[in-house]
């Protein structure tokens, strides 16, 4: 394992355009978000530039209310863009679409459907030409991957929070998106369940290698999962404050990561940023 920390104290703007364009999956340029209020405009994000490579796992960390979720929902197309643009594989996004899968903070499953039906809801939409058996197989495959082989026909409302979020992960991966957006998906879980789900997520991600952007509050989670940790400045007018490359080999195990010499350097770097 490499022990060099590629610690670039760069601004977001210089970071932008670092990669050859054929390697870029997601490109945020001069992104701006303004909420009009009676007291004048409130600028949440401004001059936000970020490029994410294909097959890269990026975690985003920052203080509460800095605009992380706003940024993510703009990428998902659920929140209109006030300025700048977002493109996936060079094409500007227009509204939401199944090329960007989302795992929400709340599992957001349809509680009246079984876990299989919840996953099928997306699969049916994305693979309309597949036969019913094929679509069922896809949904079941991903449910198995997240460890729910015994819960295909359980109602979502009968599952625990952790299991519901597992279904959420299966639903997102099963539609084979180009980009996976995760909005603090484990924030509502207890730490034990959170660890299990991180393992599940990284296992399935190692196989699928879908470009992922994940918001988190948890420094350890950010380091364990990511190729790069993006730190956002506090709002208003939040932007990218710093980027930290995590040079651990994949596949990673939690034990190896925790015992690695660089782990505490990375950790200190992130905590120093957050405390300023």
């Amino acid at each position: 394992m490499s022990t060099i920390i590629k610690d670039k104290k760069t601004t977001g703007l210089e970071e932008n355009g670092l990669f050859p364009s054929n390697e870029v999956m997601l490109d945020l340029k001069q992104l701006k978000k303004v909420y009009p209020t009676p007291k004048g405009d409130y600028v949440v994000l401004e001059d936000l530039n970020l490029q994410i490579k294909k097959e890269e796992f990026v975690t985003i960390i920052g203080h509460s209310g800095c605009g992380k979720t706003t940024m993510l929902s703009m990428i998902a197309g659920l929140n209109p863009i006030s300025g700048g643009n977002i493109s996936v594989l060079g094409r500007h996004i227009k509204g939401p679409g199944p090329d960007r899968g989302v795992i929400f903070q709340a599992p957001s499953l349809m509680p009246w459907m079984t876990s299989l039906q919840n996953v099928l809801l997306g699969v049916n939409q994305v693979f309309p030409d597949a036969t019913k058996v094929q679509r069922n197989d896809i949904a079941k495959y991903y449910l198995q991957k997240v460890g729910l082989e015994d819960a295909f026909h359980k109602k979502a409302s009968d599952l625990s929070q952790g299991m519901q979020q597992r279904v959420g992960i299966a639903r997102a991966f099963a539609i084979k998106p180009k980009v996976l957006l995760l909005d603090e998906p484990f924030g509502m879980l207890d730490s034990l369940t959170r660890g299990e789900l991180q393992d599940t997520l990284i296992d399935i991600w190692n196989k699928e290698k879908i470009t992922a952007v994940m918001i988190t509050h948890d420094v350890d989670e950010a380091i364990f999962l990511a190729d790069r940790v993006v730190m956002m400045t506090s709002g208003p007018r939040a932007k990218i404050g710093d980027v930290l490359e995590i040079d651990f080999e994949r596949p990673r195990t939690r034990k190896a990561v925790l015992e690695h010499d660089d782990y505490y350097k990375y950790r200190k770097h992130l905590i120093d940023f957050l405390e300023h």
Partner: protein
Amino acid sequence: MKQSITLGKVTKFMGLGFLSTLKDLFTGKLEKEDLKSFLRKVVVPLASILLFLGLWHLGAKSLYNTEAEFKIEKALNDQGPEAAEAMRECIASGDISCQPNTLPSPAKVWDSYQSLLKDHQIISADKAAFAEKTAALNEKRVAEGKEPIVYTGRPSFVDQIFRSLKTVFAGFLLALLIAVPLGIFIGLSPTLKSAFNWFIQIFKPVSPVVWYLLVFMIVKTLLIDSSEDSSFTISFISVGLCSMWATLVNTAMGVSAVDKDYINVAKVLKLGTFQKIFKVILPSSLPLIFTGLKITMSVGWMVLIAIELLAQSPGLGTFVWEEFQNGANDSNAKIIVAMFVIGIIGFLLDRLMLFVQNSVSFEKTDAI
């Protein structure tokens, strides 16, 4: 998930949870700590029923005495002391011709209940005999292409209960068929909502009597050539129109207030409009739709009596009205029997709707 049905579940569903506590008492399963809940769940309701019956009995007795004294006084003033004495004896002897006509006591109501049941048995036997007698003849008439002869005798109390239930279910079905689709459209489209809002706000508070008159005006003209009795049609349409508002408003509210998370999921998955409505919006608004339907059912049952009474459509409403007009000695007691029957059926209908609501929706609602 399939669950086995046990006595406990059934009684709990019926809102009669104390029955299973009672069972525990007799099977010796009751713990000492359960004594408090036993007191609350069994003893208190039973005591309150007894108290109610006692107050009723005393109240009825005092009203009876007032009425009796008034009658004697009247006889004394009009015809003299002998007539008054005769009246006193007549009342004391329990003779039907001179009984005071007032609120009947619980015992009298129970007697009337028994006599109504007996009456039903007599009429049923009569009907069966009639059917037997005319069976051969009817077969011949049908073979010849003529109308079969039907029983045209007086309906029994039980027949009228079923007739009322038929009317209320027809009205409920009508309300469901109008209010649910309309509510969905209104909930989906803000334009339709503003188009219909005045309509809903103005017609919602209109009294059942006025609805009946409106329906009467229209149906009477529409069925002008028909020789058939239109009273059933008029009464079930009126019941439907009176009671549909709760469902309409609740459906529109449920559809327009779907959890934003679900809408986001639908957006991300790019579900088509049709799929969005049937897979996301409708299922998530089912609990509110069923709350509306539950209210519709109870309102429908409540207004039914008044509407039947006006429409002269056979049923409990007509039964009550006829007994009131009749003024026979046991009429008042029969009216009270009808009152309890109406109340108990209304309660059972409410439980039925609650059961349906719980079995279709994903959120469990407790009985209130």
